């Protein structure tokens, strides 16, 4: 009987109420994807329909069960796994290769990646130069222009802060997927015992790439350190230098995105390497939403600390009732807390006063953004896969 109760916990909300709360997201999804039904192509229609159903269902389940992390993870892992599929397919279709030919760089046809954003500011201020081989405005060859991507980044950052890393980033889903494969962490205990100062490494890499990019007038992170070049696009290998770059990309990807997440069940690249994550942490300071701990309920069991995928909790921060600055608002700690001490919180209100209201407000914004940005990537990737599949 006990195991049955554990296997089927009581629903958090009634079906009717959950449906009602899901209605705005369903309407938003329809609004986002209705235009694609006017375009020709059955594959595209199927992709859009699948995404509408997928995103709406997941949101409904969030409302129904009161859990955030596990349902968000379905979306996020799907995004991480399908983004390279669509992206690589379009690169191969347009260029015939994943590598970036020099003439494409010169003509500004490189799709803009948000990882570059922190490196742009100093050269733009000092020399009025954008150190990225892309175009400011969309062109026929490159719709992913710098202005559009910066606009999307800014809007989403204002809404979700560092929640970007768990609702928007199409790279994070890859390692979250690998972290989700094993049932138990092989070396989880060792990771928790790591020197806490290692959490500062992303900040150091951020500062390093920002100053060096200004000195060299090139996006150093993209040129030398980005693990995700392995599954997106990279400079064509034609010299020792480019071979070395490729070696670094593959090593970092294999180590930080595949092997370590698999062994630790943590997002190791996000926790210990990603400079863009550190950059996004700054915006947590101005974002309205955060996770807090009700100290009256907390029993210091550290379940939340174990659950956190990016080590954004320390014993000290929990004692203070807060997360560390790098919290990405994935909801893992809240879902894992058996005493309901970890709560969603709207800044300026009393902690644990109406945590579900704060969660709802955050999720509406975050899920709407996720549907708009990640959803369109998913729809595109599904359409691409259907297009390439031999069976129609």
């Amino acid at each position: 009987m006990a195991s049955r109760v554990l296997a089927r916990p009581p629903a958090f909300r009634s079906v009717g109420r959950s449906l009602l709360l899901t209605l705005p997201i369903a309407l938003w999804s329809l609004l986002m994807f209705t235009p694609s039904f006017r375009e020709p192509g059955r594959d595209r229609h199927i992709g859009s329909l699948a995404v509408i159903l997928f995103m709406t269902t997941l949101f409904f389940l969030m409302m129904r069960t009161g859990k955030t992390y596990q349902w968000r993870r379905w979306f996020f892992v799907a995004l991480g796994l399908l983004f390279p599929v669509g992206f690589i397919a379009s690169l191969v279709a347009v260029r015939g290769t994943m590598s970036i030919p020099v003439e494409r760089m010169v003509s500004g046809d490189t799709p803009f990646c948000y990882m570059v954003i922190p490196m742009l500011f100093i050269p733009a201020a000092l020399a009025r130069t954008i150190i990225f081989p892309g175009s400011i405005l969309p062109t026929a060859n490159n719709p992913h222009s710098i202005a559009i991507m910066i606009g999307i980044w800014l809007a989403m950052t204002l809404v979700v802060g560092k929640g970007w890393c768990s609702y928007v980033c199409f790279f994070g889903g890859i390692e979250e997927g690998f972290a989700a494969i094993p049932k138990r962490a092989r070396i989880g205990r060792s990771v928790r015992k790591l020197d806490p100062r290692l959490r500062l490494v992303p900040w150091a890499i951020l500062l390093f790439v920002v100053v060096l990019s200004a000195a060299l007038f090139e996006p150093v992170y993209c040129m030398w350190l980005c693990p995700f070049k392995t599954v997106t696009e990279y400079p064509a290998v034609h010299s020792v230098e480019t071979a070395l770059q490729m070696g670094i990309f593959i090593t970092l990807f294999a180590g930080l995105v595949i092997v370590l997440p698999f062994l630790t069940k943590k997002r190791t690249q996000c926790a210990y390497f990603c400079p863009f994550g550190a950059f996004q942490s700054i915006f947590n300071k101005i974002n309205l939403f955060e996770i807090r701990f009700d100290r009256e309920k907390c029993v210091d069991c550290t379940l939340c600390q174990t659950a956190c995928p990016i080590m954004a909790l320390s014993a000290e921060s929990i004692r203070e009732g807060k997360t560390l600055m790098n919290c990405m608002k994935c909801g893992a700690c809240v879902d894992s807390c058996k005493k309901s001490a970890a709560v969603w919180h709207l800044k300026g209100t009393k902690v644990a006063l109406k945590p579900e209201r704060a969660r709802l407000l955050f999720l509406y914004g975050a899920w709407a953004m996720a549907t708009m940005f990640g959803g369109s990537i998913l729809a595109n990737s599904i359409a691409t896969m259907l297009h390439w599949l031999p069976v129609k």
Partner: protein
Amino acid sequence: MVVVPISTGAGEALLLGLATGPVCLASCGPVVLPWMLVQPRGVRVQARQLSIFLAARLSGYLLFAATVWLAGSVIPRSWSGRSWLFGGVQVLLAVGLLVYAAGWPHTRCSFADSSADGSSRLVQIDEPPRSHRSRSHRSGAVTLGFLTGISVCPPFLVAGVRAAQLGSLADALLFFAVFFFGTAVWFAPFVSLGVVRRSSSFVTVARMVAVLLACWYAFAGGSVLIERAIYG
């Protein structure tokens, strides 16, 4: 060779310095920034360290100006020693950053220590005596300032070309000194780092950056030297 009168040369040097200052700032920034961040808090302290750094940089400039003028010719882009100098300075900068900014003289290993939440500490940074600390900071500023002063960045090369065209050694030195003041103006904002609150995390990050930059300079300088050694 066209000889430029110093009356026009000084104005040109100042303008050249002011105009190329952002490039100087960007190229010296990777060295200055982590160095300044590991210094104690306070505008006066930072201003003093920056002044020492800039004075050492000026001495590097003047040494270079004298060398250029005494060599009796301009330094063209094809100057054979340029890559040796460039590579050598990069490697020395790497060593300097590692030694001074990473606080190597005052670091001891302590694997037995534990932090508040039970994590082992890999390295414990000791607080050195005040006199020892300030001496070390001064020598760091002097070393790094001098090395950035003789590193052959593009604006520096332009100034070198013009200095070699001047009539006397004194004129060449004056040209470089004025050029230096033009570029130095751009470094003033670094003093504002003195108001940034220093926590242990902050200093740790600055030291990590210094180590990363040292690796980069070692790689950049080392690859130039290796290339030079192989291909001549």
